[in-house]
Structures are given as C-alpha cells and as structure tokens.
C-alpha cells in the first residue's frame, strides 16, 4: 500500500465521475474499499488513442481491465468484499457474468451503434474530449470496434447483420435488468448494508444508462421503470460521490406525474413492439401475408407483458 496509485480513465459528465462503464466500476470500488486514488482523466490527451482504459498505475506495475484491477486492489488489502460469505462471493461472480453477457452488448449498442444516440450524444462527447486531429476519427474507430464485437459475439454464423441481432440483445438486456431488480428488492445494496464489488459493477453498468441524455432508448425507459435500480444508483452517487459532483437532473424528473410517465412508457413500448413486428414481417420472406399474421400479432402482444 506504499506507492501512490493513479487511475487513467475517461472524464465525467451528466453528474457522474466518469462516463465509461469500466472506469466507473473501478472508481466506485475504490470509494467502497477506501482506496486513495488519483484520477488522471485521459481526455484531451493523445492517450485516448493508445491507452487501454481504465488503467491503474501503482509504482511500477500497470494493471488493466476492471477485474484485474479489482484483484490487484484486493491483494493490496483494499478489500470491499471482506465480509461476504463464500456463497455470496460465488453469487457475485455469477451476477457479474450475467451483466457481461446480457447487459453489456445492449449498452454498447445503445451508445455506439444506435444511429441517433451515436450522432447526438456519444460522438460529440468523445470528439470534444479528444485533441485535434484525433477528434475526427477516434469516435468512429471506437464505434467500429464495438459493432464488430457485438456481431462476433452475438451474431449467429453467417447472419452478420445488426438488425437481426438487435431484437435479441435488447430483450436479453431487459430481462437482465428485471433479474437485477428482483435480486435487489428493497435493500440499499446487494449484500447486507455495505457496498461490495457487485455493487460497483452494477453501478458502473447502470449509471451511464440512467444519467445520459439519450434521445431514443427503450432500454433507458425500461430502466426508469425499475425504481429500486434507479434509487440504487442515486444512493451511491449521493453517498460516495457527492462531494465531487452534484446531480442536478433527477429531482426535476421525479416531479413528473407518475401515472403520465407510466402511460407514456407503455405507449412507447407498444409502439416499439408494433414497429419491430412490422419490420420483421416485411423483411422475413416466409411470413408472407397469409392467415398466420393476425394470430402472430395477438400472440406477440400477449408476450409483451411478461417481457
């Protein structure tokens, strides 16, 4: 614990200390375990191109990837998981795997592949934080890497078209959010009353989705319906990151009429589903306009409720 530790990560916005999921995970864990970290944002430096973010530099060792960084901190006896039982530790691993497999593709898609969000939010943000001339090609490079990753991991065999994969990754993500919500229940943190690495991971994944100013996002509206998860994010921000940055936006949102909010979300969900069905029916040749069509519209409107 002797040497000072420096974390390189992306900078913050929208009330968060960092907009990048992995960096947020490490920052949150550092707060929970009481680590003294100096945060060195890579914004406006040439490191945006070359460094892999987040990166922890401690004396002479350099560690990358959130799981490795957390392991490293644990070895330095900065452990937020000290009080967990063996079984809870196993649960932590399982839930982190769930987040990585089910939620991460949809998050990456929402921020980097969805055309509206990318051009209105992500691209200007990253372009404005990079030095000239990186701002011209860095965001599109990151977007290409992300698209390739989604297609390789979720695209099935030769169907390398993103539209086929979209429906599946979003429904997986919504299911994942529901499962997290069931698991959290009414508690403040996932295990007892003190935050652990699982809380850090969930916070890192959910907070950007919760706070970002996304124009079109069914996933964000789904998250907003799950009150206990949004309360979880706000709690952690208020309790651990409050001193650094105030969060102005959420109180304004809460004053909106709850019923009106629920109604708009339901209408959005229905219209999204109808749009998606329309696209599917148009693009798939075997579902030509025959008898089956009216039946499938009935059955899929029934299936919207369990989703």
């Amino acid at each position, binding site marked *: 614990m002797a040497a000072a530790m420096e974390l390189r990560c992306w900078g913050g916005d929208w009330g968060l200390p960092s907009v990048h999921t992995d960096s947020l995970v490490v920052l949150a864990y550092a707060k929970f375990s009481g680590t003294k970290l100096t945060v060195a944002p890579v914004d406006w430096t040439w490191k945006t191109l070359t460094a892999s973010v987040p990166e922890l530099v401690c004396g002479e060792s350099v560690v990358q*990837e959130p799981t490795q960084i957390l392991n490293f901190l644990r070895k330095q006896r900065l452990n937020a998981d000290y009080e967990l039982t*063996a*079984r809870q*530790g*196993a*649960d932590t*691993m*399982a*839930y982190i*795997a*769930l987040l*990585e*497999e*089910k939620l991460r593709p949809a998050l990456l898609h929402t921020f980097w592949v969805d055309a509206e969000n990318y051009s209105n939010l992500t691209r200007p943000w990253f372009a404005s934080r990079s030095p000239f001339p990186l701002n011209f090609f860095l965001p599109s490079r990151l977007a290409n890497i992300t698209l*390739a*990753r989604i297609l*390789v*991991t979720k695209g*099935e*065999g*030769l169907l390398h078209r993103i539209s*086929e994969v979209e*429906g*599946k990754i979003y*429904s997986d993500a919504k*299911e994942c959010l529901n*499962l*997290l919500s*069931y*698991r959290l*229940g009414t508690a403040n943190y996932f295990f007892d009353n003190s935050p652990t690495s699982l809380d850090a991971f969930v916070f890192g994944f959910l907070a950007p989705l919760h706070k970002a100013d996304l124009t079109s996002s069914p996933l964000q509206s789904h998250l907003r319906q799950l009150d206990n998860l949004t309360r979880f994010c706000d709690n952690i921000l208020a309790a651990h990151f409050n001193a650094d940055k105030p969060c102005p936006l959420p109180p304004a949102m809460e004053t909106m009429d709850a019923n009106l909010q629920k109604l708009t979300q339901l209408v959005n969900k229905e219209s999204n*589903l109808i749009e*998606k*069905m329309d696209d*599917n*029916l148009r693009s*798939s040749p075997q*579902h030509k306009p025959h008898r*089956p069509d009216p*039946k*499938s*519209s009935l*059955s*899929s409107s*029934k*299936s919207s409720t369990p989703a």
Partner: protein
Amino acid sequence: MSLAAEAFVSQMAAAEPWPENATLYQPLKDDQILLSDHASSLAVQAYLRMCGLPVQVICRANAEYMSPSGKIPFIHVGNQVVSELGPIVQFTKAKGHTLSDSLDDVQRAEMKAYMELVYNMLLTAELYVQWCDDATAAEISRPRYSNPYSWPLGKILAYQKQWEVRRKMNAIGWGGKSLEQVYEDVSQCCQALSQRLGTQPYFFNKQATELDALVFGHLFTILTTRLTSTELAERVKSYSNLLSFCRRIEQTYFEDKGS
C-alpha cells in the same frame, strides 16, 4: 429469431404434446464431436431426461450445418427444430414441462446468473483450450473436426473454424490470456459452483433444474474427455462435492437405461 416469430413458434408448440419420435442431433460421437459441443449436447440430454421426455440421440456428420443457429445440439420435435439449451428450455416450457416453476423470482435470477457464469467461464475456457492452444488444436481439434471430410475440404473447414473461434476470443478479451490464466479462471468458476452447491444434492432445494443439467453436462465432459494435458480435469477434480454431484446425476438419470 425475431420476437414475432418466437411468439408464433411457442404458440404452435403449445398446441401439440411431446411426440414419441423426438430426436436430438449431434456430430459423430467417436470421431468428430469436440469437447464444447459434447458438453452442450450432454447438458440438453440431461435436461430432457430430468423432464422425463424421451428423445433419441442421432449422430450426423453435418449436424452443425443442419442446426438453425449453427450451434449443437438441436432437437427435432414434430415439425419444429430448436437448437441450444436456452431456446429448448423455453420450447419445453411452452409444451408444459418445466423444472424451475417452484423457484421464486430471486432464485430464478440466481439460476440465470449461474447459468451465465457457466457459459461465460466454462464454455469459453473449453473453446479456448480447444482452438487457441496450438498443441490441442493441432493434435485433437483440427483432426477431429475435419474427420468426415476428404482432403483438402477438411483442412479448410478446420482452419476456418479455428479462425472464427480465435476472432471471438479476441473480441471478448480472452485472446491475450495465457493457458495458465484460463485454467485459473476455470478453477475460480468451479470454486464458485462448489460453494453454491455446498452439501445439497442439487443447486436449488431437492429438485433438479436446468442449471444442474448445464453444470453436469460441462463438468462430466471435462472429466471424461482426453485432451493433451489433464490439467483441466485435475482442476475440476479438486472439488469433491462437484464430483459427487456429477456421479449422482449420472446414476439417477443415465444409468437406468442399461439395466
């Protein structure tokens, strides 16, 4: 499958009961099938036995290409074809057979999380050991994969598959891992499973669920498959409750056929 098509298929599935002539397709058992495929296939077989649904296992050299999603195994029931454990579980649920009904929401969340852990760690490690480790790939995976085809088709297909798997490993960040790190990950995963299982007979209460089928499929295959090194099997063997779990499931669901 798109959402509308899925809903349509499950409605059709609900209409008919499980037929007697349901079949499960997998690659040739002795010469062709690889560790990861055999694990997935065994998991599905275990699940169907746990549900009490009869299924006949048929080995075909081109099973991978017949499958609708390109993954093994797949089942042919009535006039529908469903592949992979997740969709098969949903399909049997639409027909009215399910193992996880008695679980409450939190337990179901846990079950799904543990299943993802197995997919994320065990399956990925199996794929890595098979295709990214040069020794294993050259001695076992490529020869086996190209077995039913004549030269040079077999060679081309084997290298294509290897390239595809390595690309996927790079995309998820496993490309830079060493074999030792992968074995370490497998140990951690087994430790998590072992701690969750504890002294219970199954993962949830006294009843088997799809998680038990999946874990059995992977662990049993790792324990009984011969690779270039026995390191992977050794790592699993060090957890005795997992060993007895595998043995118990094998005795309960797989050995009544012989006697």
